């Protein structure tokens, strides 16, 4: 089995990638501005919902229940989907999913596909597989199109081109759409994209989508979006293929009531997404005549098996945790080395890869808890982060110096006499670094700290000594 999360396994460590990303002043400005706008819109719309906390609880419970009985709901979804005229394929990993999809396209003799709303296909690196098979994929979600034309990578779960501003996007369009002139207003850019995409919508005969929800009881698939491009992709082609992570299943149609209320508010700061498309199988003379679902595992059942981390699979990809995260807001999404960035990416990416890659991601958080507070399905991300950190340490993948320091600290804290001795030792050991009444230029692991911060000195008398002498 070859589980893959895009190119995450080959990506540099988070601290290194973050350092590089933070040198890009324009990127930081774009990220800060965009996340700030979405946060403000979200806050207003959440405030008007008196039952917001109840909705969060309901969503969390539905997900918890679904994960507990995921095996049953998946089979039920398959049966319902087939009954509605769809075909269901099961893919254990990225390669199998890509093979299935490539096979379907080739069986129709087609060499082009239009794609929309499928982060999962970035996870499996579907575009690379398609190109290798001589098939040209066109991204049709506006932001994904910008990323594809710019030979770039998505930096946000909901707003993949969030790191680009309008002028940068205009330049990409000018260069890659071979335009001679292009205005500077949003409507000019939208018009250029519309012309570019409309031709493909009308010509290309195979569409590939992701899914926000797959409904077990009736086999329906649901996608929410802002532009209407997904609606085009889902209805115009002859063949439609939906690549769906197995965690996207929900039991009943009525569960959408909860999720559609929280998703758009959390994701884009809208009451509802402008387009919510829900379809079941195929209908004669209306929409695609062939509908395939590829259900993807790619490491998800391993996550499911870990009870303490299972809640990771509850994620509905709203991106609220990215927008609120003080780490993400400094670095942007690329530093996470994965299509899944921000706090949710920090727990999802390493787990999908069975903790064999991306081991610095669980440490890419100050554990401030803002992600947990904002998460509409109440994923306790800090708790999962701490759980995964323990896994990294257990595997022996933490730095040796850190291991030694932590063992030494555990030894010193094992009793009051040892602690007092350590305090005495610290008073002496700090002397070489004393400067202007504080500590500077600290060695080794601490050098990063002291590069921009001073450290208070260890005072001559500890509290315990003061207390002892006081009596």
């Amino acid at each position, binding site marked *: 089995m070859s589980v893959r999360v895009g190119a995450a396994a080959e990506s540099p460590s988070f601290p290194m990638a973050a350092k590089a990303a933070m040198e890009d002043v324009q990127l930081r400005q774009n990220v800060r501005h965009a996340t700030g706008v979405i946060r403000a819109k979200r806050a207003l719309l959440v405030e008007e919902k008196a039952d917001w906390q109840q909705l969060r609880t309901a969503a969390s419970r539905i997900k918890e229940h679904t994960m507990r009985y995921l095996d049953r709901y998946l089979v039920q979804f398959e049966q319902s989907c087939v009954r509605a005229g769809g075909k269901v394929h099961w893919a254990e990993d990225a390669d199998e999913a890509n093979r299935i999809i490539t096979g379907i396209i080739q069986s129709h003799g087609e060499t082009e596909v239009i794609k929309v709303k499928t982060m999962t296909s970035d996870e499996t690196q579907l575009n690379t597989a398609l190109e290798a098979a001589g098939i040209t994929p066109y991204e049709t979600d506006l932001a994904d199109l910008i990323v594809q034309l710019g030979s770039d990578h998505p930096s946000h779960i909901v707003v993949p081109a969030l790191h680009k501003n309008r002028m940068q996007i205009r330049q990409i369009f000018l260069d890659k759409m071979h335009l001679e002139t292009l205005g500077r207003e949003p409507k000019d850019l939208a018009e250029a994209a519309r012309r570019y995409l409309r031709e493909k919508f009308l010509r290309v005969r195979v569409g590939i989508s992701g899914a926000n929800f797959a409904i077990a009881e009736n086999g329906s698939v649901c996608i929410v979006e802002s532009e209407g491009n997904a609606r085009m992709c889902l209805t115009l082609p002859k063949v439609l293929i939906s690549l769906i992570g197995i965690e996207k299943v929900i039991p009943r149609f009525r569960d959408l009531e909860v999720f559609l209320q929280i998703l758009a508010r959390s994701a884009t700061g809208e009451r509802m997404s402008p387009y919510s498309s829900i379809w079941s199988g195929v209908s004669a003379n209306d929409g695609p005549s062939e509908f395939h679902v590829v259900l993807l595992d790619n490491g998800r059942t391993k996550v499911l098996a870990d009870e303490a981390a299972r809640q990771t699979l509850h994620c509905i990809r709203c991106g609220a945790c990215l927008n609120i995260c003080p780490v993400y807001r400094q670095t942007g999404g690329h530093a996470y080395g994965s299509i899944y960035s921000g706090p949710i990416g920090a727990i999802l990416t390493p787990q999908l890869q069975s903790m064999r890659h991306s081991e610095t991601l669980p440490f*890419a958080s100050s554990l401030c808890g803002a992600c947990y507070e904002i998460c509409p399905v109440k994923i306790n991300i800090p708790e999962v982060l701490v759980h995964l950190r323990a896994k990294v340490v257990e595997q022996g993948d933490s730095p040796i110096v850190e291991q030694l320091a*932590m063992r030494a600290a*555990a030894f010193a804290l094992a009793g009051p006499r040892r602690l007092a001795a350590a305090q005495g030792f610290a008073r002496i050991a700090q002397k070489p670094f004393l400067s202007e009444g504080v500590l500077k230029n600290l060695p080794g692991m601490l050098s*990063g700290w002291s590069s921009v911060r001073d450290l208070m000195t260890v005072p001559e008398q500890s509290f315990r000594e003061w207390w002892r002498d006081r009596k």
Partner: protein
Amino acid sequence: MKISLFITCYNDTLFPETGKAVVHVLERLGHSVEFRAEQTCCGQMHLNTGYRKEALPLMQRFLEVFDDAEVICSPSSSCVAMIREHYSILAEETGDPTLRDKVRNLLPRVFEFTELLVDRLGVTDTGAFYPHKVTYHPSCHSMRTLGLGDKPIRLLKEVRGLRYIELPGADECCGFGGTFSIKNPDVSAAMLADKMQAVAATGAEVCAACDNSCLMHIYGGLHRQRQPVRVAHLAEILASEERR
């Protein structure tokens, strides 16, 4: 009421003035205070960095030391958060029902300093005098895990002579995060820069918090930049009776 202090290892070592201030405030309010010298650390640093095995004996020591304490008070939100959030999970993992019961029995007796004052003792006026402009940084653990809300600010507002100035973007993390600041020093420094800018914008003389760890971080940046703002644990302000 006999109040047993959990001073915490880093306050004991690096910030003894905070512990002294807690003693001072509680005694001034007429309570009797004890410090059990066998205490060391709650295990937060080890647990949060992934060293669960090392955290467990520290929790066991804590449970033993404070086994029969009536009320336990700690001037560190993050340590109280560690106890409240993680002790049950750690105990559960051992599968030892005695340990689980001990934790269950411990939790209602543990109070963060401002919780003890406002919720348990019903005090907001501690009789302090502190003629300075003060802003308050609500640390992440105090705000999100403990839900201290406006308790610290209510306490500050009762201090005579004190002018409270609200901190813009108060709910943003200062970037400390324990070993996060060592493992991700650049991101941490960028977060700190935002926090320092916010603190400086208030024009306050003093930045207060209920966590010396965050204050150590904020001070570290301010001092390097030679900014005139000082930092002080809330307890030190409440203990103050300085006269002009």
